[in-house]
């Protein structure tokens, strides 16, 4: 499983099936099937054609294959065009390429937590209708961009 590359010293081959818990410090590249939990401070790459079932805690995660489980990344999560992710994502930065599939709850932000909502006004104002031609002439309807 060892890879000579310094970036990904650990690689799970395309014909390999791993079940259990995996912990690593540097990068790991998954080319086969993995069922279990992964925890690391390094980068995890799920290659195209690979399948990961389980929860992941890593520094950064790049998904090119299929993942069913929750992702928790301290820096960023990248989904390429061939990626398919079903599960929750908690990270500081999220990139979803066009063509990728992502279904689940996302928490993206400072330390992966939402900002405090103390400055959000409550929705107690009377409901308004969709701005009509008449209402557009008067404020405070949003300004339409002239083409």
């Amino acid at each position, binding site marked *: 499983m060892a890879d000579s590359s310094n970036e990904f010293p650990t690689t799970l081959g395309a014909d390999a099936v791993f079940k259990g818990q995996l912990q690593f410090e540097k990068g790991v590249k998954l080319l086969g099937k993995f069922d279990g939990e992964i925890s690391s401070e390094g980068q995890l790459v799920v290659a195209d054609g690979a399948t990961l079932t389980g929860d992941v805690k890593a520094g950064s995660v790049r998904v090119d294959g299929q993942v069913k489980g929750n992702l928790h990344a301290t820096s960023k999560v990248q989904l390429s065009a061939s990626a398919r992710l079903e599960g929750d994502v908690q990270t500081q930065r999220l990139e979803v390429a066009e063509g990728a*599939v*992502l279904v689940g709850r996302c928490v993206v932000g400072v330390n992966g937590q939402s900002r405090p909502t103390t400055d959000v006004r409550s929705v107690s104002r009377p409901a308004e209708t*969709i701005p009509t031609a008449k209402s557009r002439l008067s404020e405070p309807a949003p300004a339409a*961009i002239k083409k």
Partner: protein
Amino acid sequence: MISLPTKLDAAVKWVTCTHCERPTEVAVRAMSVFCPHCKKRLILEDFKINSYYAVREFSTCGDVVVEKKGHVVAPIKAGSLTVMGKVQGRVTACGQVRIKKSGWFKGELEAPCLLVECGAVLDGFVRIGPSARPN
């Protein structure tokens, strides 16, 4: 020799109706039309919001930009959405949803494409993908 524009050369574009989700051909310069399928009014304008805006429904086939000072509390249906301010509610987009670094989003999101910049905040259920187009 000058060729006169034919009917086929008219500036038209295809949009997805926000009510019945069917493709509809409309003029590029049109601001609103009636959907030929569901007969409901379809807004085509682009909107730029730079203040507090809370409504029951906010639908357009155009692009919606929430400026830094903008704060939208509404279910939004749009062609595309760019968030630089705050958005609370359920968002359904036919195109890309971009949350800039000053953006804050809380709610449900359905779109074919999503970009969340470093520094942005996104909290909610997300459904992204080609099959995530609203049905």
